[in-house]
């Protein structure tokens, strides 16, 4: 259970709010590099942490991220002309460079250098891992970029998608670390009902996740506090003297990694507040050992698993609440627990059904919610720490993000921290 005050503290990310200030300590994914593909291309609207911004790539290839509104008459710079190292407001011609400095003010008489004293809010950006990252905090405290494995592999090893979700970021993060929902929300009807034919099938298959999920429906949770956030380990009974462990990573402020399987691509998310009632869901699949094969790419890009198909201009998923996520009730009766196609749409449907910002004082949690409780406490610890002027350690230590998720079979006598040590080290 959370108090109303704690729920507010965790979920409000606008300027001046404690969680808002916390997110403003980190580099955050802001847009795909391909949204601003070439110098002087069209500017793009970016909404982040409740702020309306405009991104543009200037003539020298630098990405500017500035306040959407021209300070002169508050017209939107979205309509601006991206020209010769600056974005010109087409209302009265004021022009800004990527740093937010006004470099031209053609409608003012005399031109007494007034333009040099005018600035608009501009945030630093970095291109890293196929994305443009932004830092919305104080200039003197610029953090390190997180050394995430997916961001450091060559472009050919990675696929990233972006989608808009109509919920607060925390609902989405909680979905990302909640291992117990996958036995239900993402299950087939046969798996949920443990039909004999299904159990026989998975018992003899190499799909360890399906096998042990079917054999042990009441997993045990363990959490471990780390410098970068949390390790969340879920244990299921396996063959005699063995446990099957699945390890999820939660990395501050809002990255997660799904338990990965040996020799398969790894998947992760970053859930970035757009404002208090919507968030950007960044989904990343990567193979640290080599380029994604054509087959891998096709499997990853289709909607079966974690990526969703979206409208390319708004990033709104094609399956969304307005069309009831294209639910197929016949499929729900016979085949899939939800009747909704794809894990991403299944997650989004349920998370959005809770409302844009769920009232957590009304929840009734149990011990299977341990991971969610831990993530909330870890974030509260950090947010309250910052309010007392304790700067977040993770923001200034990019190296600590050098980790992976994992899944493994371990002897019952081996603690997961020991058994997973090698598997959770990232390598590029």
């Amino acid at each position, binding site marked *: *259970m959370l108090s109303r005050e704690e729920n507010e503290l965790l979920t409000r990310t606008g300027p001046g709010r404690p969680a808002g200030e916390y997110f403003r300590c980190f580099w955050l994914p802001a847009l795909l590099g391909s949204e601003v593909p070439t110098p002087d291309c069209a500017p793009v609207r970016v909404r982040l942490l409740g702020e309306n911004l405009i991104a543009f790539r200037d003539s020298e290839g630098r990405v500017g991220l500035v306040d959407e509104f021209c300070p002169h008459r508050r017209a939107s710079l979205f309509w601006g002309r991206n020209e010769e190292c600056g974005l010109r407001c087409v209302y009265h011609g004021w022009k800004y460079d990527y740093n937010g400095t006004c470099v031209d003010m053609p409608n003012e008489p005399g031109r007494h250098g007034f333009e040099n004293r005018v600035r608009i809010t501009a945030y630093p950006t970095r291109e890293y891992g196929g994305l443009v990252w932004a830092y919305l905090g104080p200039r003197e405290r610029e953090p390190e970029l997180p050394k995430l494995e997916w961001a450091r592999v060559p472009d050919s090893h990675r696929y990233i998608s972006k989608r808009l979700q109509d919920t607060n970021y925390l609902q989405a993060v909680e979905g990302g670390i909640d291992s117990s929902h996958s036995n239900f929300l993402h299950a087939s009807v046969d798996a949920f009902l443990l039909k004999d034919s299904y159990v026989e099938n998975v018992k003899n298959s190499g799909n360890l996740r399906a096998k042990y999920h079917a054999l042990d429906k009441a997993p*045990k*949770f363990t959490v471990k*506090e780390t410098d970068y956030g949390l390790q969340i380990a879920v244990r299921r009974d396996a063959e005699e003297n063995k446990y099957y462990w699945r390890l999820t990573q939660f990395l501050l402020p809002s990255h997660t990694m799904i338990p990965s399987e040996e020799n398969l691509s790894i998947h992760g998310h970053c859930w970035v507040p757009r404002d208090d009632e919507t968030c950007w869901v960044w989904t990343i699949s990567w193979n640290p050992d080599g380029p994604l094969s054509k087959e891998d790419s096709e499997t990853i890009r289709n909607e079966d698993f974690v990526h969703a198909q979206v409208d390319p201009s708004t990033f709104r998923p094609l399956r969304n609440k307005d069309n009831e996520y294209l639910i197929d009730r016949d499929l729900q009766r016979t085949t899939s627990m939800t009747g909704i196609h794809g894990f991403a749409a299944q997650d989004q449907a349920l998370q959005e059904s809770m409302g844009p910002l769920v009232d957590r004082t009304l929840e*009734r949690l*149990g*011990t299977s919610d341990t991971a969610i*409780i831990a993530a909330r406490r870890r974030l509260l610890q950090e947010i309250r720490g910052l309010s007392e002027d304790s700067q977040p350690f993770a923001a200034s230590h990019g190296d600590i993000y050098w980790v992976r998720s994992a899944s493994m079979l371990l002897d019952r006598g081996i603690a997961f921290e020991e058994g997973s040590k090698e598997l959770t080290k990232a390598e590029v």
Partner: protein
Amino acid sequence: MKENGCDQRGVDLTNVNPSHIVTVESFSVDIMRSLVAHLEASTKFEHFIYREAELDAVWSLTAFYLLNEADMEKRKAVELLHLCVHRAHDLVAKGQPEAAAAILRAFC
């Protein structure tokens, strides 16, 4: 190695492992005793999270009970437990498991 989730019934409550999550099936005296013993043994973040999860579970169970129970006498006792579990939960969240245990001892 003692593992999270092993059966806590009948264990020696003077020697509990705070890394275990107690299986909360009810708010019986036995369960409350086990919770208090685990609270007393808890010293770090991970332990506090497990205790918080257990108390959340008791709070949920008592809330559902109160929703359905009409008998005023029975309600009275559970209402007090529900309230105290809430207070104990918030104390654990503040890193004060001993204080939380003290509140719950009355129900053991």
